[in-house]
């Protein structure tokens, strides 16, 4: 039997314009052996939760540059919970002010990354969170 594949939804909620960073992360995760479902720009929290449900992902990665993370992230978390997917780990990347990071973690986000984050770190953290291996 083959090893379990980690499935990750990479989504870009909100109205900000480009998804270069999200694509770089998506490719890095693929190169780490993960299956990445890429959904593109301007996703609403409803679209993200629906895609997470249909794709039975282990992880949702949100890339947010617009500053709207304090509205978008709790909404995604709430919808995942409503759908019975509270086990899904949520990672947030983008421009997030320092003071918001602990608040996001408290809500249930697994990790938050700034623009300079290394993809190796993200990969390691995802593996640890999903497979339960020590980071």
């Amino acid at each position, binding site marked *: *039997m083959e090893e379990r594949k980690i499935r990750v939804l990479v989504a870009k909620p909100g109205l900000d314009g480009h998804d270069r960073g999200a694509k770089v992360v998506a490719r890095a*995760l693929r190169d780490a*052996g993960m299956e*990445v479902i890429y959904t*593109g720009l301007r996703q609403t929290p409803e679209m993200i939760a629906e*895609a997470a*449900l249909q*794709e*039975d992902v282990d992880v949702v990665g949100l890339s947010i540059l617009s500053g709207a993370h304090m509205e978008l992230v709790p909404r995604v978390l709430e919808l995942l919970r409503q759908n019975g997917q509270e086990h899904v780990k949520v990672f947030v990347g983008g421009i997030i002010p320092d003071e918001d990071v602990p608040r996001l973690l408290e809500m249930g986000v697994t990790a938050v990354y700034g623009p300079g984050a290394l993809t190796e770190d993200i990969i390691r953290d995802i593996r640890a969170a999903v497979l339960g291996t020590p980071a």
Partner: protein
Amino acid sequence: MNLVDAVLAGDRLALSRLLTRVENQHPEGIEALSQLFPHTGRAHLIGVTGAPGTGKSSLVNRLALHYRREVQPAPRVAIIAVDPTSPFSGGAVLGDRVRMRDLSGDSGIFIRSMASRGSLGGLAQTTAALAQVFDAAGYEIIFIETVGAGQNEVDIARLAHTTLVVEAPGLGDDIQAIKAGILEIADILVINKADRPGVESTEKALRNMLELSHPLRHVFRHHGKIEVVEAAAAAPQYNSWIPPIHRTVATEGKGIAELVESIARHRQHLIESGDWEARERARLQAELEDLLRETLLHQFRSRIAPQIYEQVLQQVLARELSPWDAVHLLVDRRQG
């Protein structure tokens, strides 16, 4: 409630989880397939193949919308979109959903992305099994978008009842992308991106190639005179399907209604000609024989001493025995 009952009752989370277990060939998934089997056989499986970038995902997006909005009563629609697994890392980026954003918010639609996981031929090994799960779950229309990378995507024609081959104008100076092999599997040809220049020449080339495999008329030279006999007149009982060619602009929804009509006509043709049943029979027989082969081999291997098997293999390796002789030897030893 167990997973199978939940799926039959319409629970989408249960459906999604079951799809994962089936995809991973988890024993629980295989057991569930067996329980779901009596509920299958109702769906219309529609394959969508063609080179990357021709607009397969965009087209599926529009077709699904049409089924949901214009067809009465609206069927439930499932979409299985297969993308390639990287041979280097075993990972994949599955991007077909990007073109299907219009479909979100409709609980009568279920989109599932799949990585090919090393299987060639445009589908993953478990794509057919996933389609069975959707069928049992009551999805009446199931689209299967293939990887679209090769000329030898014949697997889709074996799995789907109706196969759409998608082309686009201007993919090469001539139409490099169109190879006879892919045309042979087409039940319906779609020239998407019909808003682009070069549609006429693409359609002309397709017609020429179609003529080769589905001659519309036979031309005879009779006492120096040329006689043309229409195929239908020559053999009226010959009820064959000639693949229609459709022009579409998926981004604008043009040509979609006509394409849906064609798909419905093809289904009707399959049923009336007996081909629907013949295809089902061929598909199920192939599945049965695959399973038989696997099971018999497994049984055989479990009853023969590994040293003996290894010994025979060594003899084959040393060219002392041919594989055919080796089989005789192994099978006779078992019976003797």
